[in-house]
């Protein structure tokens, strides 16, 4: 454990050195990405100038949900970079051979070899929006809520990680020429609005097949005091644990199945 922690800091130091070579570049990337994230709110902002509520969700509640969804996503995106290009970089170019030679878990190496620190802008933006909405709604945030906030953000990030790890691991069996990651990535959009507006099929899918609902919607229902979803809220850690274990199993199977391209 201690060794792994030291390795993370080393990996990070390495990344930071590369990144700080172009300081201005990093700052530009951070703020222009943040502008992009803020523009993402534009649709809901404009829409609510015309309608009082979306089903029975008020403007503040919808914004709270949207803002909350960005926080686990931002944390996930800090380490997700390698997953997008995994098949290209590690399998086709054969970099995975190098990973296998080292006496540390393969998963650990792939996840922490690369960072994308500017994604923290999503965490910052999301937290700001959540804070503003909570204030406007006069939500009471006790110590217990704070605890749950941290836990559900961590669970959300873990759920994203698990889903995309499973998709990434698929490339151990066959080269992903079709690109199954982008459509699933776009499903994140579903999680940004109240699950109740969708039909039963999509609600089921977002809960039990690609459980983005447990990363965004179910946590927010707790903070917004909507007791109809209490059961789902309590299932968050269970679902997270389940999908994490599944992802690790699939990944390890994939590694066992890996054969080098020889390049």
């Amino acid at each position: 454990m201690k060794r792994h922690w030291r390795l993370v800091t080393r990996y990070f130091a390495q990344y930071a050195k590369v990144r700080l070579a172009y300081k201005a570049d990093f700052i530009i990337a951070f703020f222009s990405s943040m502008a992009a994230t803020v523009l993402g709110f534009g649709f809901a902002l404009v829409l609510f100038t015309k309608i009082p509520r979306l089903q029975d969700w008020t403007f503040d509640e919808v914004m709270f949900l949207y803002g909350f969804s960005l926080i686990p996503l931002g944390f996930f995106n800090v380490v997700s970079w390698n997953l997008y290009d995994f098949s290209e970089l590690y399998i086709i170019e054969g970099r995975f051979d190098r990973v296998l030679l080292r006496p540390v878990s393969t998963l650990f190496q792939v996840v922490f070899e690369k960072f994308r620190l500017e994604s923290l802008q999503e965490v910052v933006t999301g937290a700001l929006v959540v804070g503003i909405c909570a204030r406007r709604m006069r939500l009471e945030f006790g110590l217990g809520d704070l605890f749950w906030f941290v836990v559900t953000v961590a669970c959300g990030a873990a759920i994203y990680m698990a889903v995309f790890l499973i998709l990434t691991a698929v490339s151990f069996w066959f080269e992903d020429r079709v690109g199954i990651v982008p459509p699933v990535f776009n499903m994140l959009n579903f999680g940004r609005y109240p699950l109740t507006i969708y039909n039963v099929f999509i609600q089921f899918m977002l809960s039990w097949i690609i459980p983005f609902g447990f990363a965004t919607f179910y946590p927010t229902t707790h903070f917004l005091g909507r007791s109809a979803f209490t059961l789902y809220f309590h299932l968050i850690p269970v679902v997270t644990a389940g999908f994490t274990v599944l992802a690790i199993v699939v990944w390890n199977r994939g590694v066992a199945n890996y054969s080098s391209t020889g390049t």
Partner: protein
Amino acid sequence: MPQADIAHSATGAAPSQSPWKFLRLHFEFARVGFVNTLAYRLRYYTGIVTYFIYVSVYYFIWKAIYEHSVSIEGFDFAHLLTYIGVGWIIRSLYFNNIDQDLAYQVIEGRLAMDLIKPVNIQFMYVARAAGEAVFRLALLTIPTGVVLFLVYPLRPPASWGNAAAFLVSVGFSFLIVAAINFAVGTFALRLQSILGLLRAKFFLLELFSGLLLPMTFFPHAVQKILDLMPFQYISYIPMLIYLGKLHGGGLARAMSIQVFWVAVLMAIGDGLWRWSTGKLIIQGG
């Protein structure tokens, strides 16, 4: 880093070219764009799914909204659904990656290859993107259209005349987007990495082109400002034509403004290109 000292020869297209030669040359660029995309054809299958997901998300949002009202800002649910659905279908056609291509040319140090070509760079990129668009039309736009028309109750164009004007108008949309992307892409030459900027532009276009919701939904003051900008001529105007909300003089005027913006934006792109290549460092090469 080797410094490329290249004069402006790159920007000035050979002026004495005959129009026939010009067309043949750019047809060739379009062909290259088409063939390059061919290598990634499998990716377009998931593109259809992606577009389907986008439209579905907005379908459910709008359905929830229209539970309480029959008409908002002159759009009933069927109209609005068509506006959104067909809006995304044409987006799959006018969308292009000129900005990203330029950025990667700079990052990978291949830009010098563009600079030595004795043609107008902007026309070359637009021609290539047009070749890609033909490809998208067959593998993405039409299949996406078929799927969306089957799944959601989208309406046909208001009339044959509107349909024809709509198609021409989408052609102008393509040129406007291409010109904006080229202009934004030229910033890659001065700023080393512009991927964040491109992301911001992406969301800006989504919102202000009218892709996500009609311009009439914006507050009046904002509408006034957006009227003076080219963005709504990308999606909002073609969709008004499709729905039959623009005809006669209004239609002619809207389409002339589209042409106006194509010309202005291309001139801006040309100017920015000259300015950017004035002082240029090629990375690595």
